[in-house]
């Protein structure tokens, strides 16, 4: 038994966050201001996502936390431990087994289902922030649906590079109204945002919560002659052979050797367990020995 209130936050704070989440659901893509609390972790480590998760978790939940697709990185492990300790909930690395998934910068490869909640950690919630630093102005721009500046930015990409060079945190329009920052997920993940699960976004330092309900139209901004392209590395995964997943490029030696592996560690491991093999997979016999 821990000496924390269930899921760490006090009840009044949770009520405040819950009200913000519900208004976010009612106005998809709109950033709801909330009184973000100090959390026992530094800003930039997912304080927004943690507060949203804390407001959502029930005792019956199974939590999965990923950082760039991986379950075993510092950020993911520490947040998982945080909720194991303060909420006493079950945790998992299996996407399918999780009811709440907190993520930093990825959407799992496995399609999410109804009944699941995906909580994003968001560093800068305002998609227009780097174009217009004043909050008073960006708020007005959202109110007036004045998003020309964002298209100018994408156009300048094309003028400079010949294509839209934005590859992560690629802006989307939600249900034809609000332009939204999908958090720094790779643009490869953007098409997945039209999903069956509830998506909640928490930005702790910036004190904003926003949401995308299930089956909501999420369109990546583009031009007719430069349509959105959810590009990925032109390689199969070197461990599981998948050709349809988002890959990390890993430098493996001092001679320029490299490998490409699924960024979603759970998905990759499950494929390997099913017998899928990539270019650099150990032979099956070795893998079996290692498993024993």
């Amino acid at each position, binding site marked *: 038994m821990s000496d924390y209130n269930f*899921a760490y936050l006090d*009840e009044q704070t949770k009520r405040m966050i*819950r009200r913000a989440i519900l*208004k976010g*659901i009612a106005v998809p893509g709109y950033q709801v201001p909330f009184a973000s609390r100090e959390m026992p972790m530094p800003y930039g480590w997912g304080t927004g996502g943690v507060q949203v998760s804390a407001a959502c978790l029930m005792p*019956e939940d199974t939590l999965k936390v990923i950082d760039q697709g991986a379950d075993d990185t510092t950020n993911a492990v520490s947040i998982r431990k945080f909720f194991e300790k303060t909420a006493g909930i079950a945790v998992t690395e299996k996407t399918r087994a999780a009811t709440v998934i907190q993520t930093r910068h990825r959407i799992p490869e496995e399609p999410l289902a109804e009944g699941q*909640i995906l909580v994003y950690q968001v560093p800068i919630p305002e998609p227009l922030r780097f174009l217009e630093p004043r909050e008073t102005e960006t708020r007005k721009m959202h109110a007036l649906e004045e998003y020309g500046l964002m298209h100018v930015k994408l156009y300048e990409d094309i003028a400079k590079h010949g294509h839209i060079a934005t590859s992560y945190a690629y802006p989307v329009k939600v249900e034809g109204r609000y332009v939204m920052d999908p958090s720094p997920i790779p643009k490869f993940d953007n098409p997945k945002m039209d999903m069956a699960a509830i998506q909640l976004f928490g930005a702790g330092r910036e004190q904003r919560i926003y949401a995308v309900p*299930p089956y909501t139209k999420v369109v990546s901004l583009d031009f007719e002659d430069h349509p959105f392209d959810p590009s990925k590395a032109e390689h199969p995964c070197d461990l599981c052979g998948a050709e349809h997943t988002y890959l990390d490029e890993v430098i493996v030696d001092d001679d320029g050797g490299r490998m490409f592996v699924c960024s979603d560690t759970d998905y990759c491991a499950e494929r390997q367990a099913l017998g899928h093999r990539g270019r650099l997979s150990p032979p099956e016999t070795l893998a079996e020995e290692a498993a024993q």
Partner: protein
Amino acid sequence: MPEKHMNEQSLIGAFEAPPQDAARAFRAALEALARPGSIHEITGGKAPAPMSEAAATLLLTLCDPETPLYLSGAHDTAEIRDWIAFQIGAPIVAPAEAMFALGTWEALLPVTEFPIGTAEYPDRSTTLIVETDALHQHGAQLTGPGIKTVASLSLPALDPFRMNAALFPLGLDFYFTSGTQIAGLPRSTQVSDMMETN
């Protein structure tokens, strides 16, 4: 001011395990609003009649001294005011100041008196908790965010909800409560007559 004395009824009906019960109730409320037309069980709070268990649970989950509340019609009783004062602490206000409102559909009319938010802060609008006799998944046709194709829900009217949706991104958000059941209708939902879509 009439003389006030707490009746015993106001001291009971809170959550048995507040953090856990509120967490479960919130998830029901979240699913209800995120999937308009879906009906969920929400239990744990018990307030004086005529407030339903669903409405009492929702108030305990979302309201506190920071959320001005409007009580309408038969829900504006001394017993309910006492219960809210003791269990929740929400100030009782007029519709124009309300963050939440509770009552039957007829008692809450005209809904045009409630704040619908501002262009810059559309979240500053009232959430109405509408007590109904029963909730069914037939009646008005719903489309929009949270709905895969089309959903149906027994709504007390059509036009006010249509007009509310036309205000998007401004507008009111609704919960419908009956017994231990809850359904949600955010402003983002398009409402139409069953006949029209066929």
